[in-house]
């Protein structure tokens, strides 16, 4: 796998002859791309800009103006909307859900990639398709099911799967498993089979082959998937909206809707709240951008 990737990378590397003078076509290309990029960043920058200005100033001078700089919106938003609590709720849901998704998906992917039996394709299809179904198509039975399944009081103060973190974690795991099974099984299929032959000779059990041989080799794929899954589960809006009732327990993305009422007439506060909610995903994105890129190149060389 790595040698193939290397040769391909070498093929596509720009030859030295590319250092030619700037042609008009290149200038046009850069101007166009720069304009698109700025246009794409604009809504986000505008939100940041608005969040940093006082409501009084923008109300009198209009939003197309400069001045009235302040950080008060962030303080007010943080306090009125209780962001601290909602962020924590997001952590309670996202961290276990991502870990569980990766663990369960890697188990299935390992079996699919390592052994061939007649249900392989069906199993892979069953998992992959589950990830693509529209959530609303499952809502009615799931909603009903969650209101019927009891949980002990120490696990959920609603004493039901409905309106509990456990329910949200489970539903996120069930939904995201398919995607991870698909990616991981492709990744694992590309691992050299000799590894397992050597492991078998050493008398390694199936579990050891999974946990000590396969999983360490899958680290790049797991890292890329973890990055994506954290973003997606943190961003998840629908399940939390319909399977939670207590406002205090909403993760931050779904609590946005409650904030809307509180911030109704104050766009500066709305923008501060939006920026606060966006920060975790933006931080992850900028810190781990390589994981996204690596994920893509891993896919490009199939495996």
């Amino acid at each position, binding site marked *: 796998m790595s040698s193939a990737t290397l040769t391909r990378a070498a093929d596509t590397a720009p030859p030295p002859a590319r250092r030619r003078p700037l042609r008009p076509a290149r200038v046009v290309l850069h101007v166009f791309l720069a304009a698109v990029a700025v246009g794409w960043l604009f809504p986000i920058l505008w939100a940041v800009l608005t969040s940093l200005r006082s409501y009084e100033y923008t109300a009198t001078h209009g939003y197309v103006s400069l001045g009235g700089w302040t950080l008060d919106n962030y303080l007010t938003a943080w306090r009125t909307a209780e962001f601290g609590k909602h962020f924590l709720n997001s952590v309670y849901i996202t961290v276990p859900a991502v870990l569980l998704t990766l663990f369960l998906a890697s188990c299935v992917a390992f079996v699919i990639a390592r052994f061939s039996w007649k249900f392989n394709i069906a199993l892979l299809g069953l998992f992959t398709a589950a990830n693509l179904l529209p959530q609303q198509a499952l809502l009615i039975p799931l909603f009903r099911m969650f209101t019927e399944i009891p949980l002990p009081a120490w696990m959920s103060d609603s004493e039901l799967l409905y309106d509990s973190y456990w329910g949200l974690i489970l539903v996120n795991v069930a939904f995201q498993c398919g995607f991870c099974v698909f990616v991981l099984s492709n990744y694992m299929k590309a691992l050299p089979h000799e590894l397992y032959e050597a492991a078998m000779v050493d008398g390694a059990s199936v579990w050891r082959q999974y946990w000590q041989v396969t999983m360490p080799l899958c680290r790049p794929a797991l890292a890329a998937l973890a990055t994506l899954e954290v973003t997606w589960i943190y*961003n998840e809006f629908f399940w939390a909206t319909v399977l939670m009732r207590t406002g205090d327990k909403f993760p931050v*993305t779904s609590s946005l809707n409650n904030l809307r009422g509180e911030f109704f007439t104050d*766009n500066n506060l709305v923008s501060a709240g939006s920026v606060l909610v966006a920060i975790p995903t933006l931080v992850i994105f900028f810190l781990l951008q390589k994981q996204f890129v690596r994920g893509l190149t891993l896919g490009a060389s199939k495996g």
Partner: protein
Amino acid sequence: MSDLPLIQADRAVPPPAATTTTRGRGRRLRLLSGTDRVVITLMVLVPLLLVVGLVWLPAGATVLLSGTNWDGIGPLGEIDWVGLKNYDDVVNIYPPFVPAVQNNLLWLAALFVVATPFGMFLAVLLDKEIRGSRFYQTALYLPVVLSLALIGFVWQLIYSRDQGLLNALLGTQTDWYGDPNVNIWAVLLAAGWRHVGYIMLLYLAGLKGVDPSLREAAAVDGSSEASTFFRVVFPVMRPINIIVLVVTVIESLRAFDLVWVINKGRNGLELISALVTQNVVGEASRIGFGSALATIMLVVSLVFITLYLFTVMREDRR
């Protein structure tokens, strides 16, 4: 929520040692010890139960419930079968249904005819190894890491009637999110903003997987850049094209968050997904009726999911 395959998107390069592994694997299964068999069973069974229990069973139950008049309260034993009556009601006596279908189709058309080609075009430009490519890519991809609910809020700052940028610049008084004649277009712009970056990434990965010698051969034959793309590169990316098609259809069908944060999918922003939700968690809990709507979504999506599976699995076996 709903992001679809990203990493595995491209299959243009065949796996190196696929044939030998398949043969090797088949032989080993019989040699397994008892414990190993139990471990394997558990490794598959636990995740399988979760996915079947929380995804596939509910999906099947939705289809069954769509044939009943259940109100969601009484015991399951008291359910009356009403056949296709719910579907008849959905189509004929439910006013928001037709606008919802129209909006879903409009959503699909906007993403498919405008956002997707634009994303592909940007990918082609960025594939040329130009300086600053990283910056451009990052800028375009940035909206993809934001949730759609959040995007609704961010664009509210531009669309708001009294405090929005758009009205300030245009000197108009339009309520972009509230006016049922324009709000779907305003929302589509925000949805397209996110979709373009996503499609661009998928195609960038796809383009990297295209064998460079194909392009060189075309260039030697004197083919222009545009015709090389349409006649050589684009057809080679067939699997990616199908994935993008499916991604776009499913995203348009599943669209929900954006309209729900704006006005819960009413007043010009009707979508089938929002109607299902309104019928279950809203004031009126009409289970059978909502299930008929949900089944329509399910059937449409399954058609495209099947297409997707056939594409990726065929590439898999190659």
